[in-house]
């Protein structure tokens, strides 16, 4: 058959060994799939969601309970969003633990890191758009972290909030970032990232004379595999969306009122836990920024992984990076667990 547009997006053939699911976990591909689901379900939600403080909560209730399949679309959007953060994180870890961040892939690794941070910000801005009782942490603690940054904090806070305190302008801005600002950046960086994957030689593999397995698969087979993965992905997402509803609390009535048990969204629980032990700026801004900088610096400050060791998990040349990242993951997971466990203190 003549290759279609989708076939031409892929190289004519790729090494069979490294295209296996247990090597890549399909995590990069699933990140693209989930982003697509998010754009489509998000566009559908835009037909009914109203971004004003009085109407945000009621319009979401209307979508969830009254619009035919509205609840399904909203749940799809919610689960695809949370899974994107998880799957993108898995992709990041896979790249680290297989040494695929090393030259010539260092710049693409940075692009991927930016995409990961963008997906977290998209998750956060989408969460705020609920404007219900459950998002108070975001509006109070989260945005006050911005204010705590020395020198530029108060100015940056006003830029983010559209005023000196949470207001209707805040909701409009978060909406604009969520449906367009961040999406536009993600599209550009995402397209660049995928282009760079091909230009840097595809999935990281040993040089041809070092490969032990010469088999290759054709672009046709590759597209078939991706089609299969898409079908499985849609099925799982549909079932999750049908049976596990997205959270919904009563609409926020008084934006400035305080609540005692405000809780961060799950991906920021580790930051909330850090904030219990220290200063707002150091724990809430500096430490997360430091984590990103450490991750971003790994390909540049650590010795490169020899190309003979690429194409498999845990290459010895990348041991230091693997240990550093494993430690970061354990720390963040540990902090998240601490935040979730019922505390006596």
């Amino acid at each position, binding site marked *: 058959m003549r290759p279609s547009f989708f076939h031409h997006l892929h190289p004519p053939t790729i090494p069979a060994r490294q295209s296996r699911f247990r090597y890549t976990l399909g995590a990069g591909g699933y990140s693209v799939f989930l982003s697509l689901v998010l754009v489509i379900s998000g566009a559908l939600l835009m037909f009914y969601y109203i971004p004003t403080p009085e109407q945000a909560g009621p319009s979401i*209730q209307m979508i969830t309970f009254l619009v035919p399949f509205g609840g399904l679309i909203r749940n799809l959007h919610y689960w695809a969003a949370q899974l994107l953060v998880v799957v993108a994180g898995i992709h990041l870890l896979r790249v680290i633990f297989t040494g695929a961040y090393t030259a010539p892939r260092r710049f693409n690794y940075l692009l991927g890191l930016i995409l990961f941070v963008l997906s977290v910000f998209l998750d956060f801005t989408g969460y705020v758009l609920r404007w219900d009782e459950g998002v108070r942490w975001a509006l109070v603690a989260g945005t006050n972290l911005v204010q705590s940054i020395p020198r530029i904090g108060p100015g940056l806070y006003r830029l983010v909030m559209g005023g000196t305190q949470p207001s209707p302008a805040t909701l409009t801005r978060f909406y604009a970032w969520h449906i367009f600002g961040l999406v536009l950046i993600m599209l550009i960086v995402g397209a660049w990232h995928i282009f760079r994957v091909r230009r840097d030689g595809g999935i990281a593999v040993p040089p041809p004379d070092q490969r032990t397995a010469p088999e290759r698969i054709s672009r046709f087979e590759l597209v*078939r595999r991706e089609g299969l993965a898409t*079908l499985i992905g849609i099925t799982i997402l549909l079932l999750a969306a*049908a049976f596990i509803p997205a959270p919904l609390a009563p*609409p926020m009535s008084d934006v400035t009122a305080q609540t005692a048990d405000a809780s961060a969204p799950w991906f920021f629980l580790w930051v909330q836990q850090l904030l219990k032990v220290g200063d707002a700026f150091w724990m809430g801004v500096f430490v997360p920024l430091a984590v990103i900088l450490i991750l971003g610096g790994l390909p540049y400050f650590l010795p490169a992984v020899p190309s003979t060791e690429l194409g498999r998990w845990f290459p010895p040349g990348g041991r230091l990076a693997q240990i550093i990242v494993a430690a970061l993951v354990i720390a963040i997971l540990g902090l998240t667990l601490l935040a979730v466990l019922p505390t006596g203190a």
Partner: protein
Amino acid sequence: MRQRILVATVLLVFAMLVVIWQVNRQPRAVVITPTLTGEEEYCLSCHADLPEISASHPIESFGCVLCHGGERLALEADLAHATMRGGRNPSDLAVADVSCGGSECHTGSAELQRDHVSRVQTSLQATYAGAIASIRYTYGVQANLTAQKAISAVQALHPPEGASDSRPQALDAFNPSKETHPFVQAFGENCLTCHLQAEPLPGPAFNRLTGCAACHTPSTGRDPEQPLHQLTTVIPYTQCNACHNRGNYDLRQMDFVPRSDTPSDRMNDYYQPIAQFTRCEFELDCVDCHTRQEAMGNGYLYNNQAEQQYVQCKTCHGTLDAAPLTRTIQDETDIALRLAYLNPAIPLQVGDTIVVTEQDEPLWNLRQLPDGKFEMITKVTQVRYPVPLVMGSGCTQNPEQQESSTCHACHDVQR
């Protein structure tokens, strides 16, 4: 590979069918748009079997959310009920001003007597000021029987009139844990189950709600777990007896002793065995004689029940020299007509002459007939009673002595 794709497609179609089945399992949405709010409400999707609460609160006008609060668009129980006021009872005094209030509703102008919610908070049934004052005086904590404390802090709607008026201007909150006398503390722990903010003692005989519903939702005798969606002004004596005539306080044990008799008829059920009463005191219901201001307050704070309650035998039966006070209804806006409208048993019209109390409250179920005689139509039992007057009879009534004991000397019923 093709096989795998086929299997995956089969699973996908199956998942879509499962989703369609799941979506169709949701409760069918039923919408009403009440005329007073103009906003759609979906409560009836699950609660269509509830009876209408009263003829004066039709659902087409009020809907549900105006009184109860709640999320009007939600079809999931926890979310829909999350912002309801007062749980199952929006008339609890903590939220009654929002639920029952409004300038056209029950926190309106005092001149038009539409300020029920504000007045109720000053009435003794809410403040319990008399019982609290009497216990504190008995045990030497306060010097006299002038009320100082109430269940919640409250300001009188009307200030006392002049130096000789002993009615309080304001009352502080009664806090048993701050009281020093152990008996007063025990009173606070054991004896505060009969005011409008208190949850009743367990048992069908005590069963009532709090707030406005304590009287206006006649739920005594029912299982407390069976909620009653009803508001009425036709309040039977059994509802008053959720708190009244239930037993006695033992001051030495500082505890409540419920009455132990098992009456089988209205006469014995109405009052405790120790009481004496006339025929009208058990054949009529409490609401036939006791007025709205006596029960719901008139904006003044009172020191005890004897001060707030003023209707006496002579209010209906007159004195040796005078017939009871009357008023002829002149126009459609007379409050007597508004009250009679709520009870179809009482056919009142413009031009009718009704008895009024010494404080000008209409006894709108007591009319003067064209031949000059007086007739009461009871509100609950709907019986027509001719009302004999003291004037022109053999009664030796003393207008200065109107306590029960004096009339009962001749008129009590033996049982």
